[in-house]
């Protein structure tokens, strides 16, 4: 099979190491037969043949970073549970909905057994008694593929009681949402799973590992993070860390969308591949469409501050992108060429976050809507000079203080990373301001060009004598 494209829309294979997309080339990649024939459930077998603590240690020493957005090391997250509190749960975050992001859905649709195997390894290693696999409500096919795979896996003895004849037993329960972006925030996900409105919980505790589902220690991991575990268990820590860099080992799935020749999802080597490689490389996107000039790109999902051609040579590596004032987030790059109407493009993102605000925190509920309305007015050519100042004022009431910026030794500036200060519980509010701030900072003239100019008329005298 040479072309994987026809039956896996979005995914573009290449001659690179594959950790999570190795089966995407098969049309029947989602079946248990194909999975087992290609080394499936061998990672689980390898894990169960060792004490659970050593499996946990492996995940720690391999530095498997979370692939959901924050990039927190999974092995460390598993260790944040309080001593002696049982039972503990695993909640899988398959609520992929960050603008630009398209990878978890592929992993669930194309290789659901790999995800199930990852869940089992995590439950074994961290002593988690039940797993809830939460898939975004709108993803009908992903839900069907995972349901089918779970039914197959139960029947074959890979999930449930006494797995593979061992004393390891765990249920995986398929759950799905009903349309709410904010539920991707882990405490909102837990609220939703408890049958409530999906609003984020007040922090602290900062991690549900301390207090999560039903008040019990709960590990929330992203789909792609868990999908890494079978390969890690089968091939070992050394093989895993030999790919990528020391701080960002392994691979990442990156979706590149917008104005490129070959938009697609690529599994890339973490840490070394640059944005230029991705956008212009022949094995990746093949350049900007129609040989147009690049205007700007969003490097890590809709919440990430924007970059321009100046940052193309940065590698896809969390700490360096952070030092440059943005984040890798959920592995989503959105590319804008020279034809892009920047204020209108920013509005599509601000509208998204304003619409998805759950309404719990006032700065996000009110501020997001204000940002959308004012920006909308500016885009329609009905804005005024004061509107631009107002956008910044409203934005600063959601995330006050320095906005993320690159470190600059000459100016004595140290990088302000994302997250920065915020007056809300979660990142939905600040995210509504990110596109406004980026667009206004980088392309202010485009905003100024469309606001109504009010010229001062000099009144000399009301009347003149004789």
């Amino acid at each position, binding site marked *: 099979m040479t072309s994987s494209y026809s039956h896996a829309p979005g995914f573009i294979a290449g001659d690179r190491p594959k950790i999570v997309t190795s089966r995407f080339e098969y049309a029947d990649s989602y079946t248990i037969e194909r999975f087992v024939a290609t080394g499936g459930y061998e990672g689980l077998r390898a894990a169960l043949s060792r004490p659970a603590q050593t499996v946990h240690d492996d995940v720690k020493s391999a530095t498997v970073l979370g692939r959901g957005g924050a990039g927190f090391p999974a092995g460390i997250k598993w260790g944040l549970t309080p001593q002696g509190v049982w039972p503990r749960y695993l909640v899988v975050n398959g609520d992929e909905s960050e603008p630009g992001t398209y990878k978890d859905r592929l992993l669930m649709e194309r290789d659901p057994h790999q995800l199930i195997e990852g869940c089992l390894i995590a439950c074994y290693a961290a002593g988690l*008694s039940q797993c809830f696999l939460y898939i975004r409500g709108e993803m009908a096919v992903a839900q069907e593929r995972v349901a089918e795979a779970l039914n197959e896996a139960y029947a074959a003895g890979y999930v449930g009681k006494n797995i593979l004849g061992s004393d390891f037993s765990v249920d995986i329960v398929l759950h799905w949402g009903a349309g709410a972006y904010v539920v991707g925030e882990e405490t909102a996900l837990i609220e939703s799973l408890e049958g409530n409105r999906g609003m984020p919980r007040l922090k602290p505790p900062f991690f549900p590992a301390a207090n999560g589902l039903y008040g019990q220690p709960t590990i929330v991991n992203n789909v792609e993070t868990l999908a890494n575990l079978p390969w890690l268990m089968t091939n070992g820590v050394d093989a895993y860390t030999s790919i990528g860099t020391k701080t960002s080992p392994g691979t990442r799935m990156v979706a590149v969308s917008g104005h490129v020749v070959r938009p697609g999802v690529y599994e890339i080597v973490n840490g070394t591949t640059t944005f230029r490689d991705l956008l212009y490389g022949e094995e990746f996107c093949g350049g900007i469409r129609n040989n147009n000039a690049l205007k700007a790109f969003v490097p890590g999902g809709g919440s990430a501050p924007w970059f321009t051609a100046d940052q193309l040579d940065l590698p896809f590596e969390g700490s360096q992108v952070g030092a440059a004032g943005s984040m890798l987030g959920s592995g989503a790059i959105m590319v804008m060429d020279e034809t892009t109407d920047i204020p209108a493009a920013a509005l599509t993102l601000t509208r998204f976050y304003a619409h998805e605000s759950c309404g719990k925190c006032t700065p996000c509920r009110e501020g997001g809507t204000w940002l959308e309305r004012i920006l909308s007015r500016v885009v329609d050519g009905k804005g005024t000079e004061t509107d631009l100042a107002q956008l910044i004022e409203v934005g600063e009431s959601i995330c006050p203080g320095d906005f993320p910026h690159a470190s600059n030794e000459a100016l004595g500036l140290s990088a302000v990373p994302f997250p920065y200060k915020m007056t809300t519980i979660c990142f939905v509010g600040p995210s509504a301001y990110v596109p406004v701030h980026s667009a206004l900072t980088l392309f202010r003239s485009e905003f100024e060009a469309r606001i109504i100019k009010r010229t001062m008329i000099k009144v000399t005298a009301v009347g003149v004598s004789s």
Partner: protein
Amino acid sequence: MSRLTDAHVALAKEIIGRYPRPKSALVLLLHLAQEQDGYITRDAMVHIAELVGVTSAEVYGTATFYEMFKFEPVGKYVVNICGTMSCALMGSEELMHHAEQRLGIKAGGTTPDGMFTLEHAECQAACTEAPCLQVNYRYRYRLTPADLDALIDDLLANRLTHEIPPHGTVAKVRQHIPSHHGVGVVAPESVTEPPVWLNGKAAL
């Protein structure tokens, strides 16, 4: 205005049985009600409240948070056109405009024959395949206005019924945990010991 059928009550009980707390099943039971009636009726919410052991106000409170739940009849096919950044960059506004013209309704409206409801949707996780849309949560990628016309023709001629169920059904496959394979649910308060496999020895 209908309560859940006996078959759906049996399914509902099976679903509730997978969670340590019954209320966790709420969203899935609301999906079940919507699958039955095409939208969520008051009677269904009252019935679900009885099954889960919460008040009907709590059911309503949860249901109204989520965008997929409808509280009045919608079209047989709900067409969600994505308008977030990647799709907007690739021409989704033109697509929406074309859909409004073709169907003779504005976004948010339903055609008089009850066949189509048109909605402006937010990011659908198919950004590399922009512009995209979903019909009853089944994807269509990289659409031109002509593709959209062909899709509407196919739906009107019932040529896609094998792939796209009427509004209300999301996944056509259900999870089923056979009782002899399942671990079963244990109330969190009754567990005080770590799981048996955390004994420092290999499980296999």
